[in-house]
């Protein structure tokens, strides 16, 4: 990737920018053309009044208009206004005004002129202004092209990232036969994110759910998320032991992540047949267990964030999981409020909100309802990547 073009105007080169010269006096048109030609601007068109000028502008890719004010049929101010309002063209308009008339100069800008040049024409001034505006246009165009390309690349990367996540059908194919429904939500703060969730088949009755949040956000976090995704898919460690498995992930991340990057993670093995949840935590916010009985608990346990030290051990914790219980896993973007720190939510706030929401909206409707409860403007981009997983124990197998 390269930055914006640096091929701006050189002083003496021939420039083929298309310039429209509009003046009702032929002598003025020819004089302006001669001045511009001498400075290397060889590509021009003429119009002798406002109507003709607009006609040319509708047909030709004009970059700069040198425009007189007082003309028959349609004056320069009207041309300006029509170019901006009706034709909506980004062309640069240099309007010729008498220097001493401040009101007229102000009206020219109000009408949509890009700049004013003095009349009678001063050769050095008109050449300098034309150059300046062409330079500005080319810089803007180059920045716009650069920006469009970056947006396209980010969009492609975003699509790649989303394609890594399992589809609802794939998730259901793993969870349903094992007695559970699992609903997922992921939204990157800025196209590319550093959050990641994954579901693994373990055996006929058990499956694993993983949530990882790479530190930071944006491109660096996203690249790390890609690497972690590859790792978690290929790591040949026993996924049925959450603590040992996170320890293996940690050792690998310690090797690949720079010192200021790390990850938080929650990994759980769901076994609805035996009614148990085994899990390990590495710096992740505590998932909330909403019990079928109406009670709730934030899962206990903790562990060091991943990727900072080698040989760290992680405990495997255990809790019971009954039919009708729900487990809510979430990334910190759900409860942290950096704009108004005092409004950050505590696990009990989340539990209460989630409890309200599940009583109205189970399953598929839960995510948007929960997000609507937490954020004032759910459509607004969150400042950090947001991931939610909701597990419901159905017991049907």
């Amino acid at each position, binding site marked *: 990737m390269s930055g914006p073009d640096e091929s701006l105007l050189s002083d003496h080169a021939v420039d083929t920018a298309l310039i429209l010269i509009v003046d009702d006096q032929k002598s003025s048109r020819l004089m302006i053309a001669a001045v511009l030609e001498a400075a290397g601007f060889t590509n021009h068109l003429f119009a002798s009044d406002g109507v003709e000028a607009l006609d040319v502008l509708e047909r030709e890719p004009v970059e700069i208009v040198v425009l007189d004010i007082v003309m028959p049929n349609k004056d320069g101010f009207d041309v300006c206004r029509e170019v901006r309002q009706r034709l909506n063209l980004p062309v640069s308009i240099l309007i010729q005004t008498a220097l001493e008339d401040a009101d007229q100069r102000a009206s020219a800008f109000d009408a949509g002129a890009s700049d004013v040049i003095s009349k009678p024409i001063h050769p050095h001034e008109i050449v300098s202004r034309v150059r300046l505006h062409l330079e500005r246009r080319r810089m803007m165009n180059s920045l716009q092209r650069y920006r469009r390309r970056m947006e396209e690349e980010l969009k492609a990367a975003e699509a790649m990232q989303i394609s890594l996540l399992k589809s609802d059908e794939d998730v259901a194919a793993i969870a349903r036969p094992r007695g559970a429904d699992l609903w997922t939500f992921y939204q990157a703060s800025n196209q590319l994110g550093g959050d990641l969730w994954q579901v693994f088949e373990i055996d006929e009755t058990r499956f694993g759910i993983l949530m990882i949040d790479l530190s930071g956000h944006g491109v660096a976090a996203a690249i790390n998320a890609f690497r972690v995704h590859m790792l978690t898919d290929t790591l040949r460690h026993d996924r049925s032991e959450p603590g040992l498995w996170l320890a293996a992930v940690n050792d690998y991340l310690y090797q690949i992540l720079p*010192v200021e990057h790390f990850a938080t993670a929650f990994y759980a093995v769901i076994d609805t047949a035996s009614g148990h949840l085994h899990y390990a935590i590495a710096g992740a916010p505590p998932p909330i267990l909403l019990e079928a009985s109406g009670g709730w608990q934030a899962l206990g346990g903790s562990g060091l964030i991943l990727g900072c030290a080698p040989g760290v051990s992680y405990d495997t914790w255990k809790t019971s999981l009954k039919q009708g219980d729900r487990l809510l896993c979430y990334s910190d973007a759900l409860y942290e409020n950096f704009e108004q720190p005092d409004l*950050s939510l505590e696990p009990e706030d989340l539990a209460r909100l989630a409890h309200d929401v599940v009583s109205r909206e189970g399953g598929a409707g839960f995510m948007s309802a929960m997000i609507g409860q937490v954020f004032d403007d759910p459509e607004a981009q969150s400042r950090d990547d947001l991931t939610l997983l909701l597990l419901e124990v159905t017991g049907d197998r």
Partner: protein
Amino acid sequence: MEYRTENRDDRLLVWISGVITFDDHEPFRRIVDEIAACTPELVELSLTTTKMIDSAGIGMLLLAKDKADKSGKALVLSGVTGHVAKVVELSKVDQLIKIV
């Protein structure tokens, strides 16, 4: 985030206030450079007036600690309360950086 540093006889003291987030990489780099260049062998990051810290902010503390280690200095955090204390508790960063 705002910060100020003070060179005392025995330590470099860095007061950090406000929120430490992803957007503070540049000022934090300056802190890290000061840590590498300072004379005292002890660096204290005072977070008494730090209101919040995000994951990128924790990453910056880890970077500061690494820089201190590599230049033969000890780095400690002080004034860890409120949201920062919760993040430390969750992340177990106290296993990596000494908190006084």
